[in-house]
């Protein structure tokens, strides 16, 4: 029995809902790896509507849908679509819902997915709305933590751009439900917004070295060049938040990253057992399978 029809924001989910999705993802792990065939979504069609570029999210939804026997249609290039003629999102959605059983939407405006879910009579999954929410990323992050470390009473360091990263903000909201202790490591200009610090969460501000010694999970985000007034300033800051094999020493902490990385994790970390970021990208498939099964069956 499905617990929800749409997936719009991590704020809509209780701890129980999250645990339900994560345990459902476990049932699909071998299917996601291609080791077992399952056709539970046979005859179902997913419409991928992406107004912004995406590789991992779009492809892992496609992989999840197809490995469960379903099929996918894509919006294609924006220039060739009716949006180039000035069609509203509302009209486009009302048309697309005639062609598919579920919509995965990425849009540049905050709140677009919520709006879509009010308009459409088929389920809508938010794959990122501007600087707003990206709940399937948060769920796959939580799943990675569950598989590679542990979720309860977790100590986790969030490193890099804590001000603008929507991934970080959503993850904090979810971790708050699991009593995590969160170590914040960021340059002054990219600190976590005041509004988030007011949340009922155990926050500790520290440097990267201390964080690596204390935590079980280090979650690294990209520091974006365009957030800095000049390149010199950017280099100075970015360099001090770069993780290398030497820094990790004999630490057991796992290193996560939503990807794409630029240079915040050195390539020499990739071969270490600490590096889980590519597996993290894989976990997107079983988690999205669980979400699709949830809203479509």
């Amino acid at each position, binding site marked *: 029995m499905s617990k929800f029809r749409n997936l719009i924001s991590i704020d809509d989910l209780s701890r129980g809902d999250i645990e339900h999705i994560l345990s459902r993802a476990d049932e699909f792990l071998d299917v996601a790896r291609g080791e077992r065939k399952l056709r539970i979504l046979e005859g179902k069609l997913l419409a991928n509507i992406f107004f912004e570029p995406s590789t991992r999210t779009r492809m892992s939804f496609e992989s999840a849908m197809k490995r469960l026997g379903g099929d996918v249609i894509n919006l294609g290039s924006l220039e060739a679509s009716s949006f180039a003629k*000035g069609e509203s999102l*509302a009209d486009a959605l009302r048309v697309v819902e005639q062609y598919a059983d579920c919509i995965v939407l990425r849009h540049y405006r*905050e*709140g677009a997915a*919520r*709006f879509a879910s009010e308009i459409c009579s088929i389920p809508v999954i938010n794959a990122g709305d501007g*600087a707003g929410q990206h709940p399937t990323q948060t769920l796959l992050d939580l799943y990675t933590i569950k598989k590679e470390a542990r979720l309860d009473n977790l100590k986790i360091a969030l490193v890099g751009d804590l001000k603008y990263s929507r991934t970080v903000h959503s993850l904090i909201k979810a971790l708050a439900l699991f009593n995590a202790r969160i170590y914040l490591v960021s340059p002054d200009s990219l600190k976590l917004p005041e*509004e988030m610090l007011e949340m009922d969460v155990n926050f500790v501000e520290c440097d990267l070295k201390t964080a690596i010694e204390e935590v079980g999970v280090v979650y690294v985000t990209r520091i974006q060049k365009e957030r800095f007034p000049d390149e010199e300033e950017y280099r100075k800051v970015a360099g001090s938040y770069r993780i290398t094999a030497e820094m990790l020493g004999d630490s057991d902490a796992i290193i996560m990253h939503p990807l794409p990385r630029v240079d915040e994790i050195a390539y020499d970390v990739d071969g270490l057992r600490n590096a889980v970021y590519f597996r993290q990208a894989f976990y997107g498939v079983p988690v999205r399978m669980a979400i699709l099964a949830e809203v479509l069956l």
Partner: protein
Amino acid sequence: MNLLTISKIRDGTVIDHIPSGKALEVLRIIGVRSGSRERVSMAMNVESSKMGRKDIVKVEGKYIGEEELNRISLIAPEATINIIENYEIVRKFKVSLPERVEGILKCPNRNCISNDPREPVLARFRVENSGGVVARCEYCGKKVYEIERYLV
């Protein structure tokens, strides 16, 4: 002696105990604006034993529903409403904070879908009172602390 220079109305609504200086915003919330035909009288900065100074608004010839009146509490949480019929008060009540409001506030987030002129969408907010009235956009989650600034 202070005489209130505002006449009695025959049929209509009297909105009392508005914080001083907020009467014009109250009129905006209940949809009375330039071009409206109702007879409106207003007193600003009158003395009040309860509030020091207050504003009062009287609207004649317009029926205002309770839901609409409750929206006033966004900026005037202490406001009281008197419904007048034939010069008599037939009903008196205090406004209460609505759970959500639609179409009277604009989201401060310019990138919110509710601010896209192409889309058929009305900004909708969940209203909370935690030490002060705060409205939270149901689309993008942005919080509005200075309600008056974002009245439509």
